[in-house]
């Protein structure tokens, strides 16, 4: 029961963290994406289906609470991320560590690319330099936080629940 309630509570905590801390952590109009970090961890533990549900529902709440953003974009990118990261569930021992880490980093990079591209598509055409700069900065900023969390709970140690 506790094990089932924990993801839900952690999801709420991630959302709460995003709400409370993102203002303080805004640099050049960009913020770390705590909800995405949660979706990555959750998908690795609970699999693709849980990742899609969490990504979609939290993304939807995020969009509703972020007036001005494109409604539906966060659920789209986060559910895709949840699905793809969920495919890595329990594969750490069967893959080389480099492939495993490259895979989730790559998936997150894809997430940021879709997110930034849709938001800054006009910039992509008029000023590609600024587009790539924004993309890299947005991704790196979130990677810093997932990197810190990795020191406490390494992604390689996130295992599926015992059956």
């Amino acid at each position, binding site marked *: 029961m506790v094990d089932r309630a924990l993801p839900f509570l952690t999801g709420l905590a991630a*959302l709460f963290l*995003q*709400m*409370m801390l*993102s*203002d303080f952590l*805004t640099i*050049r*109009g*960009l*913020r*770390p*994406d705590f*909800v995405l970090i949660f979706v990555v961890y959750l998908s690795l533990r609970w*699999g*693709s*289906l849980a990742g*899609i*549900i969490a*990504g*979609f529902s939290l*993304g*939807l709440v*995020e*969009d*509703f*609470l*972020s*007036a*001005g*953003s*494109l*409604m*539906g*974009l*966060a*659920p*789209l990118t986060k*559910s*895709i991320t949840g*699905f793809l990261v*969920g495919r890595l569930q329990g594969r750490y021992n069967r893959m080389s560590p480099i492939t495993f880490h490259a895979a989730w980093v790559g998936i997150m990079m894809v997430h940021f690319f879709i*997110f*930034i591209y849709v*938001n*800054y598509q*006009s*910039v992509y055409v008029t*000023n590609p330099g*600024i587009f790539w*700069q*924004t993309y890299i900065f*947005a991704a790196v900023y*979130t990677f810093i936080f997932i990197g810190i969390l990795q020191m406490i709970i390494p992604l390689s140690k996130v295992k599926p629940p015992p059956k």
Partner: protein
Amino acid sequence: MRKLVGFIVDNRDWFSLTFSIALSLLLLSNNESPDVQILRGKFNSVLSVIYAPVNWVQGIGTLREENNALRAKAVQLSLLNSELLQYKTENERLKAMLDYKESVGTFLLPARVVSTGLSPLMRVVNINVGSQQDVRPNLAVVSVDGVVGKTVSVGPATTVVQLMVDYSFRLSVKLEKSGTTGIMHWREGDIFEVWEIPKATEIEVGERIITSGFSDIFPPNLAVGFVSGIIDRPEMMHKIAVAKANTDFTTLGHLFVIRGE
């Protein structure tokens, strides 16, 4: 039938993904729908309640600093005010001589930023006034320093303000000394650019930038920023003025919505 259900259950990940993508795309295509806007307005009202304790704590932390800044500003403004009063008298006298009709006045509605949303990209803020205070989309929003943005989505008690640092925001501006107009938009960080300035125009670094008034949203002569650099290359048809805004978008607190009287 059983086979079909079995197939769906076996491939539930793929079906869920397809369903969530389809639903997301449907939402994306209905982004401007009034129902979605109403729902967002309601969510933002809830968010402003959740944010209230955070704003309260932030308010206490910055109160002393803000108070000192406001005192200094008050002194500056009272000095400026006395100077402007002289101009006003002179202006009225000249207008009377020209038989000038008084233009429509403006009404400033004070508002407070209640949240900046959850999106990883910060381009809008929510303020604590809405349709109950007669706020509607496309009204200018300013701070004591200058232009901040415009209202885009209005709920009953909250309004979303698109900031000047949103890449899709464009503002018709005038360079105060030369009187040349141009289109100002955000470039990166705290840097803006004013485009469409004729090559022959002399621009000075430090020159004030104000709203041109060629807009239904922004009244003329609102302070916007100042010129911090000039880009003038031979292959370019126009000059570009690099600019900085007067407003610090990272510390937005108290704003004013400009409403026609």
